[in-house]
């Protein structure tokens, strides 16, 4: 088997082999920033998560982490978070492929405006998206009222307060992110590959499935990774929609921090668990994407 790494990694320029002082010194501000913004808070979280909130003097324990797995409420919140984020990441990646393709390959009147409108939701806070879902799909939302006028039946009334409504809200603010990520990846796609395939007699569908898709697969994977980790961490929508008998891990963290009786240790353990999943998924998927790039270089 050939080693893909040797193909895609460019040979290091001459003189770059030995680490020199100047480049390291230039990186110092970033390293300092990372230390302040990442390492310190993480260390603090880790310390909190290993102590019992009620009895911090009793020493280090994994109790808080065990709680996440053993208490059904927290375990379900973690699983729901995973399910929702997976569904939203897959959905937004698929939905956005067409518009991203359109934006990179074609120029048409109103393209900029359309792109602007499509990317607008990215600037909305989660809670605002929640309010929009209520206006659209709430109990007396625009769509249920319209449907009731048309059919006489109260269809979809209150759908916003159920799981599909939540997925819709998440899709709404992930779509701009997915479009932009995909668009920049598609822009790098070499048109000559498709032209070659076409001139060799492949039809459009064959070109898409056998030429385009394998080449853009890494872009799809990294878009999936980005939308997955962003969905995993957001809960403003849920704060407004307040689905019954349902929770997401970030909302549980919020509750543990601000709604007494609070438990900072548990909240810290949950934060680290969420961070672990997000980092693991992001890192793993990016590795997959790189390997794919390697096999198609």
């Amino acid at each position: 088997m050939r080693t893909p790494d040797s193909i895609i990694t460019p040979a290091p320029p001459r003189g770059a082999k030995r680490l020199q002082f100047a480049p390291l010194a230039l990186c110092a501000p970033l390293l300092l920033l990372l230390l302040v913004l990442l390492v310190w808070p993480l260390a603090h979280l880790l310390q909190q998560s290993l102590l019992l909130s009620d009895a911090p003097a009793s020493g280090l324990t994994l109790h808080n982490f065990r709680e996440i797995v053993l208490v059904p409420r927290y375990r379900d919140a973690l699983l729901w978070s995973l399910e929702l984020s997976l569904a939203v990441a897959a959905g937004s990646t698929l939905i956005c492929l067409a518009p991203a393709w359109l934006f990179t390959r074609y120029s048409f009147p109103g393209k900029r405006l359309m792109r602007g409108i499509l990317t607008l939701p990215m600037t909305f806070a989660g809670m605002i998206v929640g309010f929009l879902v209520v206006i659209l799909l709430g109990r007396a939302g625009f769509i249920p009222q319209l449907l009731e006028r048309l059919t006489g039946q109260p269809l979809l009334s209150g759908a916003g307060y159920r799981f599909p409504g939540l997925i819709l809200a998440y899709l709404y603010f992930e779509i701009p992110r997915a479009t932009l990520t995909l668009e920049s990846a598609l822009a790098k796609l070499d048109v000559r590959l498709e032209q070659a395939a076409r001139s060799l007699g492949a039809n459009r569908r064959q070109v898409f499935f056998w030429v385009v898709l394998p080449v853009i697969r890494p872009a799809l994977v990294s878009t999936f990774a980005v939308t997955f980790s962003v969905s995993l961490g957001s809960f403003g929508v849920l704060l407004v929609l307040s689905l019954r008998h349902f929770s997401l891990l970030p909302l549980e963290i919020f509750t543990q921090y601000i709604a007494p009786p609070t438990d900072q240790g548990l909240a810290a353990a949950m934060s680290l668990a969420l961070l672990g999943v997000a980092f693991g998924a992001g890192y793993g998927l990016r590795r997959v994407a790189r390997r794919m790039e390697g096999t198609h270089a």
Partner: protein
Amino acid sequence: MKLSRIVVLAAAFLTMTVSLTFAEQTVIQYDCIPNYANWGGVTKAYQKKTGVVVPPDMKGSSPSMAALEAERKSPKADCAYYSGAIGFQAASKGLHESYKPKGWEKIPAALKDPNGTWWTVHTGHIAILVNTAALKGKPVPRSFADLLKPIYQGLVVYDDPRFNGTGFTFVAGINAVLGGGKDLKAGFDYLKKLDPNILKYAKENSYNELLRGEIPIWINADGNGLKAKNVDKATVEVVIPAEGTVTMPLVMGLVKGAPHREAAKKYLDWLLTGEAQLLMAESFFQPVIPVRLDASLQAKFPPKSAYAKAKVIPLGQMAAQADQIKKRWEKEIEGGR
């Protein structure tokens, strides 16, 4: 409309920044929700009178207490407003300092701490607020028992008791209203039976959603419903349930180590003046210090007889059980198993 709230918030933020640049005085009150007990109107009147800005704060009672606890070493707030039991709990955690605002002696003894760590500013009652237009011909529920009927499926909202003091007062008090015992079983059984009719356990203030009819039935404080009906002219009816209700003192306290201590004291003094108390009465919360209401305003309150069966639960008792009640609610009601 929720949008109006966003506008209000944006405007408040703007006035806050403007006031800061002009070095105006500010008093920070945790739990200062413009659409609850007309805090928007009350703080605006104070600003007009004195120039002191009291910006809105959307935290409910419990998150306010949690914030004060977290900021114990460097307090950001000057005073806080809570539904009674949570305020009592915050005071017993040592988050308040003793202060007896002017007019203190006029507050009934049961509605204040003798040391001044909390006192009542006005009183509300848990009521069923009904947007009759949104019911679309269904009968208006007259009692807590009515709310269990299947016709109200997906139409009822009460606030998440972990976040909102009013929601907590309802969850903690319904047991006494229904004549339950110390184990609160009657109350939790009722909440379990009510669950299928619940649209959501709101974590955010739902006043605007009641006005719009998005929420047809909201279990909340009577005063908010009376304001919706009489001031905002919504098709809202305030039902004092046939079984009785819970009296809810709404209390305040001066935060220990308040950054604007002197300004906060003046503000807390003012809240007990006839002028402020009348403003609160005009937004349909019972003033703690008797003020003379004109007959037309008095007529808009439900008759005294409606409150004959109102239960007064000692705040200390509710506060002592608060954590346990919230956890039990989370497990048995919100958890759904």
